[in-house]
């Protein structure tokens, strides 16, 4: 099917023409039908048509899913267009019941157990079940879009878990976690589907790890109870460790252990800080301890105590991001991980660090975050954006290069968070998604060539554009997105972060310098990413490279949705930003009000006290002693 040397008038070609005609006929009929019903149908059908007609070498099996993807994405843009979405006001909430978040967390775990029960030989069934579960989760996550996020939290579920210690099962989603959740549910099935082409050993364990990992990631993004968050946070660790260690490259064990120890080191300190915070709350409130995020936000700690707790949280997140100088586990882990592992690690797990910093470090300890923001912003620019880019430039190993580019890109995200303007926070959140999409796509694409050549050295490639034109085109798209060329998603995030940094008043006198440094990073990004393109796709073709065939159906189908997303975010950023805006403004307002009441440089020194409840916080669980 994917043979590059198809004769000009083969049967296959004729069949594909017939297919094309059939598609056009069906689509035209549907168009006629739908155009009568709604104006939404026109762009959707346009997208469907284009996607169905574009692939030249593939048959039905590729065209139909591609068309479906394009249609769904177009429908998504039309439906989510801000003017339309604003109509549904946040206060006039559509039903938020149905326990969507709980089902999204539970379904992967149930799927994992089901995979465990299936016989070892039934690999097809295991693969199929995994994909079905993940796609169902994706479908459920799209249901979250039925509510306009605004400033508040939605789909709130709060059930007592261990009432004696005030531990609740509390999940909720807001504009910040919404897109990260959807990113997770989009990336995992893609990575999983792609991995089935290259992973052939121990399918059962592989599917099990992926499903448990998905559960951990989704849970971490929605947990609003710090204890629950910690449980999910640790739950992610083991499957990723196993994925790197079992299915990884030659020095996989060392990398896996390094990954585990770094992350574990950070997380135990965070656990200590969580414990202290919860019991300090009990001491102040005179009641039982609480691990609830919204309750703990009310605790106003003296600065010297806050410093230690902030450090415990922040260290865990900064290791996960990772920020210089704690980034050294990342290149090793990425290099040795299997493709799907790299994709998930880069696209979702690194976001745990940035999300955690935004939600917990900044949400719980604003004074300390403000005090350290100028210094950390300097680290993000120099150690992350500039140093990461310079390191990436020097790499010969392609996966290592992409890993260092992640260090640089997440430097932008962190810079946006430190700058703390409405624009920069929005930019950071959208940049988290962008980085997930574009770096995920780069890792996926690099996995394609790795499966064929089994080398990661850039110098082993060259001239690949001739034997693999589609591959080359898609790779260039991902590269441009990674650089941040206007029209692609990367531009939106980086632009907002850099402008936000210029306008920031959090960074002392250096906001201009830091914004300039970040802008220089964009140039460096263009240098090293274009170097990759040049080395891989142009120049003389070696004999081995000339024999490579272009993308198979599986590879094309797994990459295509990400390529579409790159342009959708790049061209219609408002669709995404309109949901983030409210939550970003809320974070900024909360932060500002705390800083105003307790101005620098001393912020607050005095006994720990409890502040009034915030308006956006969901009502505390009335059934504190509920039996389940």
């Amino acid at each position, binding site marked *: 099917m994917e043979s590059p040397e198809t004769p000009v008038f083969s049967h296959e070609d004729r069949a594909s023409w017939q297919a094309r005609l059939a598609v056009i006929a069906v689509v035209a009929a549907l168009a006629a039908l739908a155009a009568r019903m709604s104006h939404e149908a026109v762009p959707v059908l346009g997208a469907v048509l284009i996607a169905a007609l574009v692939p030249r070498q593939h048959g039905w099996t590729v065209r139909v899913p591609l068309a479906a993807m394009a249609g769904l994405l177009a429908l998504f843009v039309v439906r989510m267009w801000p003017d339309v979405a604003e109509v549904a006001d946040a206060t006039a909430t559509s039903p938020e019941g149905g326990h969507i978040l709980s089902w999204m967390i539970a379904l992967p775990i149930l799927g994992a157990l089901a995979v465990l029960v299936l016989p070892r030989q039934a690999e097809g069934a295991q693969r199929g079940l995994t994909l079905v579960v993940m796609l169902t989760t994706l479908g459920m996550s799209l249901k979250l879009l039925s509510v306009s996020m605004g400033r508040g939290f939605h789909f709130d579920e709060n059930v007592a878990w261990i009432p004696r210690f005030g531990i609740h099962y509390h999940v909720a989603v807001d504009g910040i976690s919404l897109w990260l959740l959807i990113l997770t549910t989009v990336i995992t099935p893609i990575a999983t589907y792609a991995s089935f082409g290259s992973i052939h050993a121990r399918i059962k364990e592989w599917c099990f790890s992926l499903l448990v990992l998905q559960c951990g990631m989704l849970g971490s993004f929605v947990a609003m109870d710090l204890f629950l968050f910690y449980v999910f946070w640790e739950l992610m660790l*083991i499957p990723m*460790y196993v994925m790197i260690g079992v299915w990884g490259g030659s020095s996989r*064990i060392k990398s*896996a252990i390094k990954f585990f120890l770094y992350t574990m080191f950070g997380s135990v300190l965070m656990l*200590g800080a969580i*414990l*202290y915070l919860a019991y300090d709350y009990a001491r102040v409130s005179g009641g039982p301890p609480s691990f609830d995020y919204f309750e703990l936000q009310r605790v106003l700690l003296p600065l010297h105590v806050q410093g230690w707790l902030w450090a415990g949280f922040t260290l865990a997140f900064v290791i996960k991001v990772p920020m210089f100088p704690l980034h050294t586990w990342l290149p090793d882990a990425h290099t040795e991980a299997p493709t799907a592992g790299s994709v998930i690690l880069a696209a979702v797990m690194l976001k745990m660090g940035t999300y955690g910093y935004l939600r917990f470090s900044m949400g719980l300890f604003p004074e300390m975050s403000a005090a350290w923001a100028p210094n950390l912003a300097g680290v993000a620019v120099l150690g992350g954006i500039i140093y990461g880019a310079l390191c990436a430039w020097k790499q010969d190993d392609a996966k290592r290069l992409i890993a260092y580019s992640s260090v640089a890109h997440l430097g932008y995200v962190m810079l946006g968070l430190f700058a703390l303007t409405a624009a920069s926070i929005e930019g950071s959140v959208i940049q988290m998604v962008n980085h997930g999409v574009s770096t995920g796509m780069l890792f996926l694409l690099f996995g394609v060539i790795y499966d064929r050549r089994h080398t990661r050295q850039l110098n082993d490639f060259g001239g690949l554009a001739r034997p693999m034109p589609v591959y080359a085109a898609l790779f260039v798209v991902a590269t441009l997105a990674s650089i941040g060329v206007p029209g692609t998603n990367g531009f939106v995030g980086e632009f907002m972060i850099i402008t936000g940094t210029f306008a920031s008043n959090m960074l002392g006198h250096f906001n201009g310098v830091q914004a300039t440094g970040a802008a220089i990073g964009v140039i460096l990004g263009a240098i090293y990413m274009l170097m990759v393109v040049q080395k891989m796709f142009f120049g003389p073709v070696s004999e081995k490279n000339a024999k490579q065939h272009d993308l198979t159906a599986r590879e094309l189908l797994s990459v295509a949705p990400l390529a579409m997303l790159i342009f959708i975010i790049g061209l219609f950023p408002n669709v995404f930003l309109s949901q983030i805006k409210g939550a970003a403004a809320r974070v900024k307002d909360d932060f500002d009000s705390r800083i105003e009441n307790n101005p620098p440089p001393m912020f607050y020194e005095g006994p720990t006290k409890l502040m009034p409840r915030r308006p956006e916080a969901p009502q505390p669980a009335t059934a504190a002693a509920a039996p389940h």
Partner: protein
Amino acid sequence: MSIALALSPLLAVGLGALLLMLVEAIGTKAGPVPGTFRDVRGLAVGAASTLFAGGAFAGCVWMYGVERIPGAASLAPWLILDPFTLFFDVLLCLGGAIAALLAGGYMPEHGLERGEFYALILFTTFGAMVLAAAGDALTLFLGLETMSIGAYAMTAFRRASARSAEGALKYFLLGSFAAAILLYGFALLYGATGHTDLAGIGSAARQAAGRSPLFILGAAFVLVGIVFKVSAVPFHAWTPDAYEGAPTPATAYMAVAVKAGAFAMLLRVLTLSLGSPAWTSWASGWPPVMATLALLTMTYANLVAGRQESVKRMLAYSSIAHAGYVLVGVTAMMRDPKQAVAGVLYYLVAYGVSTGGAFGALILCGSRGREAVSYEDIAGLGKRNPAVALAFSLFLVSLAGIPPMAGFFGKWLVFRAAIDAGLYKLTALAFLNSVVGAYYYLRVLVYMYMREPAAGAVTAAPMRSGFVVTALVVSAVLVLALGLTPTSYIDAAMSAAGVGASG
């Protein structure tokens, strides 16, 4: 009769032990080779069911409420029958039953099928239960010796093995020394206070006698004797050898039940005899001593465990390290004893089921002549026997303290108590130690799932045994239950935590 009801856990185990000896002597049939071994698998069932019955009795008395039984307090101070005792009865019986089930699979497989082992388990458990109930130096010493002598004999049970003999001899010699020191300490305390019952010593300590040199020396000796049994660094030297030399079910038993009994003794002595404000203050009491011991124990054991080449020895060091974490909780008794004791109790249960399960999984990894001991033996086990590897991983992950397993909640409660008591630095060091601990537990996972055995190497072939599988299922269910639905277990630990209530 009501006293018999209150004593029913002890009586069940004690009478069961006697009955088991009789059955062993006259009831078992000769084995396949006449005159050498007997088929004693029935005894494993007998021992395990006796111990489960003992645990069930304790549970029933707990449900009924021991304070409602008339005359239950009349045995005090010799035997204190309170929820604390019953909690330990259940834990000890559970540990003993797991060990008996493991022995039922292990002993025949490795040609050690002699019925005495089961009687030893029962008598040792009986001793440990007396120890947990003891409120007087004399009963405490009786219980300790009953427990220890059984444990020495179990360690030496592999007569053909030099390591077994070496471990047992070390254990016996050092253990006897420690017991003597303990006894000497109690003698000094008696001299200082005129009391042998722990509560009496405690009330005398509140007066001037508490600061006399004689009393201080006596208390120090007693603590040294107890801490030896707990195997805290620097009194740990016997542990790795004894644990490695002993047949694995005996190792599991020592790691779970003997250790739990020793901690019961420590908690009793610290609360009843040394619970006065002067003795529990950081400036003039035992907390800095316990904190130092805890720190030394955790750090040393964790660092050394990472360097081991034998999984069994690694687990031995890991049990020392866990004693260190428990000692953190013991130190936290200085501020809020009830909460800290509850944490310690929960930790002992969580650690017990995880360690028992881990040793059980290790047993299942090997078979006759090819006992799995080293890391190389279990290389590639994830492929050869996925079920065992999965179970082993579960227990190790729990020991590493990763949520949502039992071990995590144990650490949680203990560290929480320590933070509440203001021991920030000690807690931070304990957190860091648990990271080091994760390294060597994960190393087992690395070998099981990520390494293949070297070409041509002799690997351990997994054995099959319903007994061991039963023990593993029981432990695994408890590990998950303690981790996912900890509320009821924590409640139980909280209500058992009033150590001095009826003292």
